[in-house]
């Protein structure tokens, strides 16, 4: 995976990157999910579409991950696969399955995805996505 976790006194950040916008977005979604649970054990038995209407690129990432957090926390739907369908508007197809406590190991609780230092853009030849999480 092309990501790393960022240090923060009270919380934690995630930076992910890719050769395309789509790849960077897919990476940060999976990095975010694997912070919360073990994504290796998730099978894509169901697919869902997420659409985000944010005004800024950084806002798109925050809102996308917030919607994924809702899927995990509100619908018990764990994602293991992500595919960006379009960027304007941002439409993402996520594959996953409902939480099964016997197979899926939860690792962390995330309260929210914040706008603090949120970033999405191109640096050199690489697309970079970054968020900080309230945990």
């Amino acid at each position, binding site marked *: 995976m092309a990501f790393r*976790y960022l*240090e*923060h*006194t*009270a*919380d*934690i950040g995630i930076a992910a990157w890719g050769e395309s916008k789509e790849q960077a977005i897919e990476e940060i979604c999976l990095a975010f999910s694997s912070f919360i649970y073990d994504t290796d054990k998730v099978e894509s038995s169901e697919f869902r579409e997420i659409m985000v209407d944010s005004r800024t690129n950084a806002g798109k990432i925050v*809102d996308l991950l*917030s919607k994924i957090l*809702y899927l995990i*926390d*509100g*619908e018990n739907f764990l994602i293991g696969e992500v595919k960006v369908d379009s960027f304007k508007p941002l439409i993402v197809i996520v594959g996953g399955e409902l*939480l099964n*406590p016997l197979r899926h190991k*939860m*690792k*962390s*609780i995330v*309260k*929210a*995805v*914040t*706008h*603090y230092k949120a970033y999405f853009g191109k640096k050199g030849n690489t697309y970079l996505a970054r968020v900080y999480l*309230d*945990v």
Partner: protein
Amino acid sequence: MGRWKGPSRRIDDYRIIIPPEYKPGMKVPGIIYVDEGLWETIMEEEAPEQVANVATLPGLLKYSLAMPDIHWGYGFPIGGVAAFETADGIINPGGIGYDINCGVRLLRTDLTLNEVKNKIELLLETIFRNVPSGLGSKGKVKISQNELDSVLIKGARFAVERGYGCKEDLVFTEENGEMKGTDPQAVSMEAKKRGFPQLGSLGSGNHFLEIQYVDTIYDEKTANAFGLKEGQITFLIHSGSRGLGHQVATDYIKIIERASQKYQIKLVDRQLACAPLNSDEGKKYFSAMAGAANYAWANRQMITHWVRESFEEVFKSSWEKLGLKQVYDVAHNIAKIEKHTVDGVEKELIVHRKGATRAFPAGRPEIPHSYKDVGQPVLIPGDMGRYSYVLVGTQKGMEETWGSTCHGAGRVMSRTAAKKGFNVQELIESLKKKGILIKAESRGTLVEEAPEAYKDVNEVVNVVHGAGISRKVCRMKPLGVTKG
């Protein structure tokens, strides 16, 4: 985050002022309650800059305030206090935080240290079994969608009406555990879906349940009024509004950010997004926040019930006979509408406390009748290896900080650094040597919450006591802690 290099001047042993000339847009000074030792730690991150940023908000009264447990937060610093007039002021989700009404509740017992010390392990195991906690924890309360709306309106009263606790508990809860002005329609379906299965659960992270004993009394008269004495067993509950509150904050940060642009409010940090309290957006956020606050009070009420059941199971006696009564319950992340005197004139204000505690003095109508002559209990949890405190509100606090004080210890070490720096088994052993037993769902969470990851709560409390904005009543030492 780098070390803060802005200007500051020491007013006295316990206060630092950031002058309004520091940055454009500051309308009032920033005041941080801090001594020399803690100030060194606080300057290591940008929290003082956030105090200055809050001072730029429209209509902020008097000062942008921060307590000695200040640390960096989203927009507002944790430990920040800010007041605005309700007539023309703003409301700011960043000034409340993501975990709306994260707070603490203190129970007392008639048990003594000698009666309990051989039963701590059994008690911890029983509590751990009876109170849902941990990662992805679901509550064991089954309610319908309509009943969730009742939780948002009635708060702790909903739980009491369902048989969780007694009416007396409500009297000893801030706002009687039922904040007025809730509109369940203002809470999104997403927030309700996140909160629905989690009602009646502790959660994870820094939330905990702690068996303690009173080890020092500082103010006997006030301690007597609170029913506290040396050697007595007490119990502390720290939890919040779970996913429901987190989603309310997420939803409204977006709505209020757009409202900031609509109402042409200039922001130095977009995370300080705010809206006029009396705007449609402001009113809706207040209603949703009040609902989340009520959810948290219902949650702590249910946990109280299961803690009582656990004591009953272990001590083979009713909770009433064990004297397991509620001392008080306070919110740490909330905005409240209160009456305060501003330049000699009584006004209605909306006071934001983010990682800060209301600390009202004797005589205030909001305080339970039996505490009227001494003041409101203020509950300050420390880390799991040191102490917790009961303080009491003072008139000086009313005059200087809108009746507010600190809320806890405050982190000084990142979770990642704590995970790298501490070994779980060594941590458990070192706490055991101090006479503290630990039970946790997640070993990862446990090392993140190591005592060394926090400021020393003694230092924090000494500042607010020395400054006179609240006063020490007693100190409790942990005996057993369960964490999610």
